[in-house]
Every structure is written in C-alpha cells, then in structure tokens.
C-alpha cells in the first residue's frame, strides 16, 4: 500500500468519499422512501377527503393556496401552527424573542444552523453573512485558545495512568483518546439525551440521542428542537433555551477537544499521512501541511518521528508534576 503514487492515493481517497456518499444514499433511500411515500398518500387522501366534504363552502383553489403560503412561510422558519388559536401571550409571541434570537446566533457561530428560524429581510440576510464572516474565524480563534489551555488538563490523567501502569506512549495515547471520547459521549450526548427524554414527554430516548448528536456534530437538521413552539411557562421556556444554548457551545468545545485528541493518535496520523503528499518536503509544504476545517481540526505536524522521540521524554518528565 505504501508504494502507491500520491495521485493514486488522492484518487483512492476521492473514490472512497464518493462510495461512502453513494452507500449512504442507497441505504437512506431504502429506509426512508417507503414511509415517506406512505405518509404522502395518507395526507393526500386526507386532503381530498376534506376538499370533497367541504366543496360547498370551500373553493378548491383556496385551500391549496393557503397551504402553499403556509409551507412557504415554514421554509423560512415562520410557523403558522398555534397562531390562530390566540391563547394569551403565545399568539403574539414573535418567533424572534430574546432566547430564540440568541439560539439563532449561536447556531450561526457554531455552524449548526438548525433552520427553524432564518432571516427573512434582506438586511437580516446581509447581516447574517457579515456576522458569520467575522464571527466564524473569531470563534475558531477562541476554541483554539481554549484548547491550548484545556488540553494539558486532560493530558494529565493520561500521563499519570501511563506511568502507573507502565504503558508504552502509543498505548497511553490510545487509552487517553478513548477515555476522553467516552467522557464526551457520556456527558454531552447521553446525559443531555436523558435529561431531554425525561423532560419532554413526546420524544423517545433514541430521538433525544439523535438530536444531541445532530447538534454536537454541527449538522443541525432542526427537525427535532426541544421546547420550541409549545405553550410553556415563560420562565421554563427561557431556562430551556438558555440551557440549549449553553449545551451547544460547551458541547462543541468538548467535541473539538475530543476530536483533537483523537487526531493526535499515531494510527490516525498514519492514516492521514497515507493520503498526504509523499517525497521530500519543501518549505511551502511545511507551511501548508496543517489543514484545518471550519472547526479548526488539526492534523499531524511535519515530522512525526522527531515528535514521537520526544513524547516519551515529555510524558515521563511531566508525570511527576501531576
């Protein structure tokens, strides 16, 4: 495998990527196609039954027009559910009350982008672009700075365990990465999912886990969003939205820390290096080797052998300080 030319490796990577996406497409189509079709036919039947029943007083086009308008508004995040009942404050409550607006800006900065709310006005859209253009690098810088402080904290237990159990550095790194990953998964996916499942009666545990995972990975489909659009007591609603906000920000940070730790593993480095450029490294290569995605994920530094040689030294020298 190591004798593959660089271009062959790039090609392999691209093909693997395409295959993965195709596989995902096929599986999702198989899983989701039939139920969606079923729901569609069911709703169609309901719609035609309704129209047949009320043909006397409802012109055929009026309902379709109304529903199109409702769906168009929904696409931009404006819900018409629950507004016609006019119960007290909820009917006049704007989509953009303070906690929702805060959640919206957080969803931009973490690139989650739920979409349950989206800017409608041209000024809002322009500001959104401008805000993200400035805010994304800034939040990346913040995460990088925090990571710089926090990673030594997490590396300390790993180094201590490595010394106590006399593990090789590679094994210690693996254990540490696995431990951190497990910790993040428990604290930031399982625990919030349990809390959500307990608080919200209408979603199952799996749905809660799905939501937590979707938020943490910044995919943010927005199909399940806790507490939104329900007739909750204002204090609880505020609390819930702020809790969600805190969860988004902290969870993202924890996730990035865990991913950073994983990407430092020698096995992962070797895998990434396999797909990387081979041969002599020029100066410009050393400049640009460190690729980062929008979430400031790091890859390996230019010369792993030197680092692996120093890692045992640093680990053994640092452990007494822990």
């Amino acid at each position: 495998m190591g004798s593959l030319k660089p271009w062959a490796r790039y090609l392999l990577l691209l093909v693997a990527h395409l295959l993965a996406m195709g596989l995902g497409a096929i599986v999702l189509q198989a899983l989701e196609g039939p139920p969606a079709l079923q729901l569609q036919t069911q709703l169609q039947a309901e719609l035609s039954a309704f129209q047949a029943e009320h043909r006397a007083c409802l012109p055929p086009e009026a309902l379709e027009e109304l529903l199109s308008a409702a769906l168009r508004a929904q696409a931009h995040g404006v819900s018409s559910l629950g507004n016609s009942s006019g119960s007290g404050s909820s009917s006049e409550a704007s989509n953009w009350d303070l906690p929702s607006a805060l959640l919206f800006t957080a969803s931009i900065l973490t690139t989650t982008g739920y979409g349950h709310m989206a800017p409608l006005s041209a000024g809002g859209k322009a500001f959104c672009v401008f805000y993200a253009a400035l805010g994304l690098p800034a939040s990346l810088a913040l995460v990088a700075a925090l990571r710089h402080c926090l990673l030594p904290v997490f590396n300390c237990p790993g180094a201590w365990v490595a010394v106590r159990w006399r593990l090789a550095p590679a094994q210690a790194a693996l254990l540490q990465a696995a431990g951190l990953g497990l910790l993040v998964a428990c604290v930031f996916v399982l625990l919030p999912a349990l809390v959500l499942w307990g608080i919200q009666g209408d979603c199952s545990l799996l749905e809660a886990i799905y939501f937590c995972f979707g938020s943490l990975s910044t995919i943010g489909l927005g199909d399940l969003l806790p507490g939104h659009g329900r007739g909750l007591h204002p204090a609880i609603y505020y609390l819930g939205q702020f809790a969600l906000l805190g969860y988004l920000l902290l969870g993202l940070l924890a996730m990035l820390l865990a991913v950073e730790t994983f990407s430092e593993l020698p096995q992962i480095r070797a895998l990434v290096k396999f797909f990387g450029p081979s041969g002599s490294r020029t100066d410009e290569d050393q400049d640009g080797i460190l690729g980062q995605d929008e979430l400031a994920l790091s890859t390996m530094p230019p010369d792993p052998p030197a680092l692996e040689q120093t890692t045992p030294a640093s680990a053994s020298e640092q452990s007494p300080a822990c």
Partner: protein
Amino acid sequence: MCELLSPEGPCWARGFLFLATGLLLLSYLAYLVLGTGVFWALEGSVGVGVARDMGVRMSWGAGAQSPLPRSFWSLHHLPQDIIQAYKDGTYLLDNTTSMGRWEFVGSFFFSVSTITTIGYGNLSPETMAARLFCILFALIGIPLNLVVLNRLGHLMQRGVHRCVQQLGGSWQDPARARWLAGSAALLSGLLLFLLLPPLLFSHMEGWSYVESFYFAFITLSTVGFGDYVIGMDPSRKYPLWYKNIVSLWILFGMAWLALIIKMILSLLEMPGDMCTCSLHCSKGDIQGRSWSQGQEGEHRVQSPGVTSGTFHSGYAI
C-alpha cells in the same frame, strides 16, 4: 497545573494567558449578544407580520363560510399535519422535485449535507432506523470528509504557490511571497466560489443575486439553514449537470474556505501562543508565521530536553 503549562516560563506569561483567554471569552459572549440584538431588531417585526397574516387567513378560511365546529378543527388539524410533514421533509402539494423526495438524488444530497455537516433539513429522516444509521454514517463520514477537505485545501494551496512562483519569479522575501500567495488564494477563491456561483443559482433557481449569495455563503460555511435549497422548485427544469456541479462546488468551496480561515488564524497572534512565545520572543520574529507552525519551529530550535516546548509540541497542534 501551572507547571504543566510552562515550567520554565515566567509567571506573568501564565497570568497573561488566562487573562487573554478570559477576555476572548468575554468578547465572544458580547459578540453573541450583539448579533442577537441586531437580528431581533431586524427580524422581529417581519416574522410576526407573516405569522399574523397566516393566522388571519386560516381563521378566515375556517369561519367565513358556513361554520361547522368540525370544519374548524379539521381545518386546524389538516394544515398542522401537512406542515408537520413538511418540517420532516415530505412535501405534499404539487409534485416535488427529486431533491425533495427520498429517491436516489434526494438521499445522495442528504448524505452530502450530513457528511459536510451542512444539514439543510429540507429532508430529514423520520424512521428510527434511518436516524440511527444517520448517526453512524456521520460518525464515520465526517472525519472522512475532513481528511478529504484537508488534502484538497493542501492541493489548492500548492497550486497557488506554484502559480505565484511562476508569475513572480523568485521572491527575495519569503514572507512577502506568502502574503502574495495568501491574497491570491483569497481573491481567486472569492471570485470562483462566492461571487460567480450565485449568478448560476439566480439563473437556475430564480432567486435574486443577494439571495443566491446568501445561500452560497450559508452553504459553504456549513451553517445550512435550509431556507434556500437548490433544486427544490417543482416548476423548474434542472439539467443533469447542475446538481453535480453544485456538489463539486460545495466540496472545493469548503476546502477553500477552510484554507482561508486557516490563513486568517495564522495571521492572528494567538494569546495561547504567549505561553511559549514568552520563551522564544528573543529568538527572532514569529511574525508572519502561523502560530501552530511557530510551535513546530520552536520545537526544532530547542533541544528535546526542554519540557515545556516539547510537551506542547507533542500534544498540541
């Protein structure tokens, strides 16, 4: 914990580090609040207006003709069902395009939006099996995507470097060459990925240029609200190459954006760098070098015996 950070550094560097990080956190929060205020001011009235309009129309629809109590509730529930279905990705009225259905094109687009973490939400899985699969798929697919983006960005950067070298001959000042390469990458990418594609979108989708630019930016930054999605208008005919071009655009555009953000980060003097910077400020300028590269640089300069630098180099970026 102090020893872990810099056993040989002066204490003021550690204090400075914490202060700087605290300031950064505060400014981040302030930025969040600022954005909140502006969106609230801009959007609050607009959203309420649309919702109120919808509410009026729906209550008119229910009560204007012969009002049977049953018809009111039916009218209330039926649109609710349809809207709920829409939120979950099933579009009922008219024919929907292949992008809006769980057929191959739609599912492929969903996989793309999952792996790249854009997550439009125009289609979202409802069955639990699909959701579980989605989680697993993303767990593996997102790192894969990151590796691909990393390599793509690297390739693009090398391409830009070579172009710059060929055009400018051999520059005496490497820092200046880097600046030039950086701005060349920025400008060419800006044109190619952010300024020109919206023209295509506005032509194909019928959006205005501003809306198309907004869509392009929100997609490439992987925010992906889903209020604008390509290929969802059933009244338009989309040629076969259109969606493929858009997928390619997403891939390369994201790689370019990642490159640009990395360059921006490398221009900022990170507060986190102050810790190691305090040890090596005297060793020459760290100006114009990426802060992460600065750590490797100092690692190479140092002997392996110095714990602070190697500790960071061993575990940090």
